[in-house]
């Protein structure tokens, strides 16, 4: 017991929060565990962009930025611990990059008044800002992704999916199950057969799932995977010679890590994206010059231009833009989480802003409003070229089918509001 008390006392001195001077953007990253392959490039991009702002511009509006990192290993309990450990440091925004952690944090951030940005993941119905006042999921969410995927298949089969079979191969958890209601609604609307095949965590073994796909011969396969299960799925698809043209992953299943292990077999594999790919943007030259070459890179500095690094940069860019707009709206450079939230709710991302940040045409233009925290839900399709070892967008950013996604979001958020006695905002 004495030992335990001594341990606790030591812990107390260790848990002291960092100084509260700069703009703090905590990064709940995961560089270990089965999902590290996705977590590392994202965390690097997120940290490097803020380092770039510090080095090149002297921070945001004259205030230096800080990105304290906390390792979650994609584990929800560690995520909660990380949130509690960092929230008193003046945290402006959280981006946990995990649907599981997002679900834990939604009630907590709402009570603490800190905005939560879950870009392309998390709880889809958080798009309804009337219920989820502190949660944002612009520019796109899973249901937009599901709808965009079906739209692409619709285009490929000449405008009708009548009698076709679409299979969803998904991670058997909150993240993978999110698109199922949308796909069910879409299957009613377009008349295709829909079935879902789950893959259990962590997904290194998928023989039975692919056996089922081989037997049922679906016309199209949508894939909701993350981490190590992505490369296994793509390898398995290549093994059974499934036509890669008809195999499409969500944006979390479309990075270099996922396709490279399958070699030429992965040629033609498609993935949805809500931002652009490649390293042909001025910002990356600046990152190379100011961050990597001066030895301040968060990681090894070898991830620049990869899909997930770009996503980390994009996440940091959206956070930094919201901070800038918050500074402008409040006339002060030392903003707090409440100002940040208000700015996110009126965030406007247009071509000029993206160009000014060195990211011309990097993502879709969108506006956030009080009732719509999710933007317009624009997504594009990217395809992997194994020969050139690069992703390229093969379509423009197109909106999801709002007539299907909208009512589902309203229903799900209304159920959440009823369960938790939340009064609708935005009157």
């Amino acid at each position, binding site marked *: 017991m004495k030992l335990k008390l001594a341990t606790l006392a030591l812990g107390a001195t260790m848990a002291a929060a960092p100084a509260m001077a700069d703009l703090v953007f905590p990064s709940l990253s995961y560089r270990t565990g089965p999902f590290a392959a996705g977590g590392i490039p994202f965390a690097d991009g997120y940290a490097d962009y803020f380092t770039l702002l510090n080095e090149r511009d002297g921070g945001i509006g004259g205030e230096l930025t800080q990105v304290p990192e906390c390792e979650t290993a994609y584990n*929800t309990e560690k995520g909660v611990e990380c949130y509690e450990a960092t929230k008193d440091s003046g945290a402006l925004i959280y981006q946990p990059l995990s649907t*599981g952690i997002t679900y*834990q944090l939604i009630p907590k951030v709402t009570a603490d008044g800190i905005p939560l940005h879950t870009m392309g993941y998390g709880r*889809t119905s958080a798009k309804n800002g009337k219920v989820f006042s502190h949660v944002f999921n612009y520019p796109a969410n899973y249901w937009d992704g599901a709808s965009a995927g079906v739209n692409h298949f619709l285009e490929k089969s000449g405008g009708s999916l009548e009698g076709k079979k679409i299979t969803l191969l998904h991670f058997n958890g909150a*993240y993978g199950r999110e698109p199922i209601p949308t796909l069910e609604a879409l299957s009613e609307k377009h008349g295709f057969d829909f079935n879902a095949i789950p893959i259990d*965590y962590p997904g290194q073994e998928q023989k039975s799932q692919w056996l089922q796909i081989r037997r049922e011969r679906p016309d199209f396969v949508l894939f909701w995977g993350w981490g190590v299960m992505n490369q296994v799925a793509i390898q398995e698809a290549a093994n059974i010679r499934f036509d890669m043209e008809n195999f499409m992953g969500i944006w979390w299943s479309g990075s270099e890590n996922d396709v490279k292990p399958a070699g030429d077999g992965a040629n033609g594999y498609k993935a949805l994206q809500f931002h652009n790919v490649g390293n042909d943007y001025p910002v990356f030259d600046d990152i190379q010059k100011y961050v990597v070459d001066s030895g301040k890179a968060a990681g090894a500095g070898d991830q620049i231009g990869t899909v997930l690094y770009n996503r980390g940069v994009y996440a940091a860019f959206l956070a930094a833009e919201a901070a800038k707009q918050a500074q402008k709206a409040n006339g002060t450079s030392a903003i707090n989480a409440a100002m940040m939230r208000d700015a996110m709710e009126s965030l406007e991302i247009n071509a000029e802003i993206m160009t000014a940040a060195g990211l011309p045409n990097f993502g879709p233009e969108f506006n956030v409003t009080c009732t719509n925290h999710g933007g317009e839900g624009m997504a594009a399709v990217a395809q992997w070229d194994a020969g050139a070892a690069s992703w390229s967008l093969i379509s423009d950013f197109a909106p999801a089918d709002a007539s299907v996604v909208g009512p589902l979001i309203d229903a799900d958020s209304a159920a959440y509001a009823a*369960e938790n*006695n939340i009064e609708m905002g935005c009157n």
Partner: protein
Amino acid sequence: MFYREAGDFKTSYAEDNQTFPIKFDRYRYYAVMFAAFAVVPFLINDYWVNAIFLPFLIYSIAAIGLNILVGYCGQVSLGTGGFMAVGAYACYKLMTSFPEVSIFFHVILAGGVTALVCILFGLPSLRIKGFYLAVATLAAQFFLVWLFNRVPWFYNYSASGQINSPERTVFGIAVTGPHTSAWATYLFCLVFLTACALIGRNLTRGMVGRKWMAIRDMDIAAEIIGVNPLKAKISAFGVSGFFVGISGALLFAVYLGAAEAGDSFGINKSFLVLFMIIIGGLGSIFGSFAGAAFLVLLPVLLKNVLVGVLGWPTDMAAHLEFIIVGGLIITFLILEPHGLAQLWRVAKEKLRLWPFPH
């Protein structure tokens, strides 16, 4: 010196049989209880509660529950995670079905439901033992998680299969949901832990516990001296399930606030709680506390030292944490296979004799 028995006279059997027969031990226990109930609630903040105290309290309950089954009754179980999931989902269904009832009763009822499920999966223990039983309970783990993923009724047909704990109160004070105060959630879990530890301790030193231990040590001999193996084993499964269910309900409703069967109650959880009792000490209530503290607090402490103080990269700290915790577990088990509780027991023996060892 430290454990002076001189002058500590017992004049009745009741005094001789008390849990802490040595006066110094007893006062230390009162002091800890006083600190836990009357001092800590005034000092803690959100970080302390959510990162340190709640996981420690909740895993201690789970460890006590599993210790009764494995440590006292000798029935190896790898289904703890699944049984915690039963507690969590039972609590969720009760919370959402009967919102007007105090969460206090829901947690107890969730423990009851888990006890029944645990008894059901414990029935094969009458025929099979040891590793075979471990495999049977492992099946329970996978089956229960599969069930909670598969049947939408359990998660109220939500889109993602996650369960969220809405705000529920005890005496008008919120203990679940986002608007809780640190002291309220802490005290709520502490009350359950204290009750579980008292019940566990007193069961194990009474007739029920002696029957369990007889079954553990040699079931045939126990049967010959009149222990009914059916009753002994089933009661161990029931009591263990009750505690484990309570811990699962608290883990979901009070600590996490949202959960998902595969993620929060996977096989890892079963191993974690099993390691807690192995490191803490099989067949010891104090060992359950010590093991939970070791596996919950040490990683947090290491993280705070390596990242917070030394400023190392988070991934290196995380990997080093695995190495250190793993290494310490091996070291402990080589030096003292009976766990931290035995170390503590030996230390007490030595201190009682000090400075005149014989």
